[in-house]
């Protein structure tokens, strides 16, 4: 017998639960529109649909038929996974959970009328709106580069054809050539992501093109898991990677895609591949909806993920400004569950419990050499605040590093099942 869990509603004194008055009971089914079918949006849509047992009508607005995860896309570049392993479809969300997939871009939001307009012209009305569009790039943050140059100097920071292009470029590098990465300033998605990518590119070059060089141009003083990456680079790729930090002009960089040149503090470098990861902001639709601040991110209530601008609009994942959590798929998934619980509570009167959040980011440095960093978080009135954390240690033995890598494979299988059903 499967116990009907919903049967407990109202029969048990809730532990720390807030019983909210249902906002729109009585009317026809309440409607939730979710913009963006990535780690945040798809999780949120799935949890609302799953836990409300059909009592809430959920529409997911996402132009793509297939979502390619950015997480593990570096491992694809390194040759540890094939491209198809990054692909996830929406058929379980529509088939098993009754979610409607509107295959289109959201073009505008009218918060007064509570409607979303799609690029194709259709208008959807909502009782609650979820905006989870991930990131867009800040125009002009790397002089000489804009999206029209991404075919020459790829960002590969939204997974898909860009990732394939970068991998192909690395593999086609001339013998002894130079790979350059322009790393982004804070805050950006996946703090260890650029450095895991450097490791994966080094892994490929070590095998195919061992005299090649890697130039990492980084405007930040410090970066995520720095000690671990630097130890690993020394151990596995000694002499191959050069990092230019802000002291040596990394904050004064220009690229020339037509001649494949990078100008660092006036010095011209000729490179063979240039991976430009520009500064970032919330996906454009969040700004169009008027829920972002002057830094380009959407500030949210740490207890619920509802925006400060509008309590009927929730933002989660990379696009949100929430406090201490890094912009990661794990964080987006964690935040989406808190939002889903609160949205259900507001629309159907189900219980809402105090928010809990967590994150762990695994990175692969070389075959079987995995590391991780993580933290748990709680909501304070001011922000989502870190309460505890851990990070892999330098000098760990090979067994533990291998186990950490294997754990990351388990995590990938787990989180993608949790996002897409």
């Amino acid at each position, binding site marked *: 017998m499967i116990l009907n869990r919903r049967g407990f509603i109202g029969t048990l004194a809730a532990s720390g639960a807030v019983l909210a008055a249902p906002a729109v009971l009585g009317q026809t089914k309440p409607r939730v529109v979710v913009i963006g079918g990535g780690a945040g949006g798809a999780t949120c849509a799935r949890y609302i649909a799953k836990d409300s047992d059909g009592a809430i009508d959920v529409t997911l607005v996402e132009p793509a038929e297939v979502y390619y995860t950015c997480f593990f896309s570096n491992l694809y570049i390194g040759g540890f996974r094939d491209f198809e392993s990054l692909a996830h479809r929406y058929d379980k969300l529509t088939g098993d959970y009754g979610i409607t997939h509107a295959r289109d871009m959201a073009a505008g939001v009218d918060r007064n009328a509570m409607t979303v307009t799609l690029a194709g012209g259709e208008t959807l009305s909502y009782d609650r709106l979820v905006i989870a569009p991930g990131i867009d790039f800040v125009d002009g943050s790397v002089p000489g580069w804009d999206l029209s140059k991404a075919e020459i100097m790829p960002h590969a920071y939204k997974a898909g054809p860009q990732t394939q292009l970068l991998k192909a470029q690395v593999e086609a590098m001339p013998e002894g050539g130079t790979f350059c990465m322009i790393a982004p300033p804070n805050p950006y998605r996946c703090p260890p992501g650029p450095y895991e990518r450097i490791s994966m590119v080094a892994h490929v070059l070590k095998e195919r093109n061992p005299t090649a060089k890697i130039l990492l141009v980084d405007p930040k003083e410090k970066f995520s898991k720095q000690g671990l990456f630097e130890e690993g680079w020394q151990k596995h790729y000694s002499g191959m990677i050069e990092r230019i930090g802000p002291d040596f002009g990394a904050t004064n960089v220009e690229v020339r895609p037509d001649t494949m040149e990078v100008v660092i503090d006036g010095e011209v470098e000729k490179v063979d591949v240039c991976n430009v990861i520009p500064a970032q902001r919330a996906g454009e639709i969040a700004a169009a909806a008027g829920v972002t601040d002057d830094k380009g991110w959407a500030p949210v209530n740490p207890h619920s993920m509802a925006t400060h601008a509008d309590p009927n609009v929730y933002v989660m994942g990379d696009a949100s400004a929430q406090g201490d959590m890094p912009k990661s798929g794990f964080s987006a998934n964690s935040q989406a569950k808190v939002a889903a619980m609160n949205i259900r509570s507001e629309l159907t009167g189900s219980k809402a419990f105090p928010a809990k959040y967590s994150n762990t980011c695994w990175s692969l440095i070389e075959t079987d050499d995995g590391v991780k960093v993580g933290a748990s978080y709680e909501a304070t009135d001011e922000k989502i605040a870190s309460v505890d954390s*851990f990070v892999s240690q330098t000098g760990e033995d090979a067994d533990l590093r291998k186990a950490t890598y294997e754990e990351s494979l388990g995590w990938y299988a787990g989180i993608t099942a949790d996002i897409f059903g």
Partner: protein
Amino acid sequence: MAGRGDIHLALGLALLVAWGGSQVSASEIGDAGKGAEIWGECSGCHQIGPEAKDAIGPKLNGIFGRKAASIEAFPYSRSLERAGRDGLIWTLETLDAYIENPRTFASGTRMSYRGLKDAGKRADLLAFLRDFSDKPRDIPEAEPTARRTLPELPPEVLALKGDPEFGEYLASECQTCHQASGADEGIPAITLWPEEDFVLAMHAYKQKLRPHPVMQMMAGRLTEEEIAALAAYFGTLEE
């Protein structure tokens, strides 16, 4: 059903917690002579001494200071192997907890031993085992860095009946890594896990008796009430 299990497990926990906080600590060294008699309960599966070989269980010479599941050729359970990899070292304290309830440490351990509830007898057995370690005199009577133990909890807190709906929400956090389908590549499955084992395991992580930094962190911030809620939720799935 959840109700009965809760009471049973509350008693087990009360014991566990009482030992952690009381004077008569099992980590004080016992009487090796008496321990030799208790060894009879172990010797069906384990050997010890100069001639000892791995049998149904691994040989136990030099167990103190050894990493869990570290005899190369021995086919340990995946649970124990994982614990070893995560850094579990056999000490007076960890062995004491393992012998008290093997599943506290490794839910899937192959050691089919109910556990020894009497702390005095455990201390005697540990004294006996210790005599077969390399340099028994170098093994301190108690761990130099005493670990923080849980405060003694009133039985009514331990008997807390969890709210499964709260548990369902809390469990969603587990499912980022632990698959609902029960697949266990790289990360162990937690579905269909007996409630009592679940509660014991969470407390063992919370007390940092079980290694693994992620789980110590996750369990470390769970309250008694939340552990009960999670157990209750996983209980509803079981039926």
